[in-house]
């Protein structure tokens, strides 16, 4: 279908650009690990409390790292007015939205896959078997974050103080994702499976589905003047 073909095209272009310059990936990765150390010193956690605080610490680190990625999202399009080149072409605006969202998801997942095991080692946690399920929930949360983040990064593209405005506008809207992801992660850490956090998981899935569809429909007005 045309939408998917164009999304693949744009995504491949973004990935080639990123692998060639490796700006966002490296900065996001080091920022993620930096946050772990900062949290460790800031909270000075006694071992028992660590497992209880892990979801919040992890998810906050991912959220701020993701925001870094979002502010860089349309950088490639900024030089030589390449955004105009894309708007000029018979490109479906929804494809640009999907490509940019997937791009930021890939970056964040790459960071998460490295940061979570690192977190386990640094805080020498025992529950290694929970890590895969944890990454799965983090993935769902990342989708919600990137979908809304890409939408709002398009909205604030032409605003002054864009980097400050984006988090200010984005974070209040992220409350459902933040609460849902952290509750699910806690449930996984406590008793190994989703258990009583199932309604939170449904909320997270609902959030993702709603805003992916809204994004594809509405991105047209976001990016065009």
């Amino acid at each position, binding site marked *: 279908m045309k939408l998917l073909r164009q999304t693949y095209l744009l995504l491949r272009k973004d990935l080639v*650009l990123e692998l060639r310059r490796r700006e966002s990936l490296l900065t996001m990765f080091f920022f993620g690990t930096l946050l772990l150390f900062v949290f460790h010193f800031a909270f000075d956690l006694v071992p028992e409390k660590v497992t209880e605080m892990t979801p919040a610490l992890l998810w906050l680190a991912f959220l701020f790292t993701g925001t870094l990625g979002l502010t860089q999202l349309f950088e490639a399009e900024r030089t*030589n007015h390449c955004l*105009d*080149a894309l*708007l*000029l072409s*018979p490109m*479906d605006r929804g494809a640009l939205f999907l490509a940019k969202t997937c791009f930021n998801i890939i970056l964040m997942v790459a960071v998460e896959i490295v940061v979570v095991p690192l977190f386990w080692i640094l805080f020498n946690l025992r529950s290694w078997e929970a890590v895969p399920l944890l990454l799965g929930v983090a993935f769902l949360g990342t989708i919600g974050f990137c979908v809304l983040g890409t939408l709002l990064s398009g909205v604030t593209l032409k605003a002054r103080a864009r980097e400050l405005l984006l988090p200010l506008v984005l974070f209040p809207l992220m409350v459902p994702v933040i609460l849902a992801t952290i509750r699910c992660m806690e449930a996984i850490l406590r008793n190994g499976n989703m258990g009583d956090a199932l309604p939170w998981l449904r909320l997270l899935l609902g959030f993702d589905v709603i805003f992916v569809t809204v994004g594809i429909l509405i991105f047209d007005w976001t990016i065009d003047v």
Partner: protein
Amino acid sequence: MPSGLALQLTARDLSKAYGLRWALRDLNLDLVPGECVALLGPNGAGKTTLLKLLAGLIYPTRGDIRLNGVQLSRSSTELRSTIGFLTPGEHLYENLTVRENLDFFTALYNKNHSLVAIARALEEVELTNWSQEYVSALSSGMKFRLSIAKWQLLEVGLLLLDEPYGVLDGSGINLLEAFLKSQCEKGNVVVIASHHIARVLQLCTRALILHLGKLTFDEPRRQPWDSFERAFADFLPHGGP
């Protein structure tokens, strides 16, 4: 709508305002296939605004633009495959190589050109041995030649150019004019906004003069063109082609 098809463009009382200023007011324009139109006028007359409106990059505050009767609007993605916008040094990804840029845009415009076709296009603009270089390594003249190759491959029905002559050397200018002539012969419409009146007048079949957002002159070219000289004289102190 295959791009080679003859393209009829009509603009009816086209107006565009930026905040408190009218950049363009009540402009009526009809372009027929094969026309090569020179868009002249002092800075800030609204030339770039008109080009962006025709390209569908910005939308009019009043009035509309129709391509073959179909209105150019936000949702007309199909229509956009027939519109090209060529500005020196723009619409190219700096960190992609010359080849990757061409591959990306030809795929985006759904043009499945063979490798041979792309190689031939590069050869025509003498960029063959630069094809693996990054665009950022190219000089502005070479970037412009790459844009020519790009739009040649994308086969658009309407080609808009904004100040093309600024960056070109001798051979570049011949290349550009040969390219534009071939586009007009193929029945495409070309609109060039420029300050190089001498060169652009020889090329064009029709001249438009924009002043303070209003179309003050619109006539096909003919040899003793005294009406053009009169109209253009009051803009430039030295006046005349």
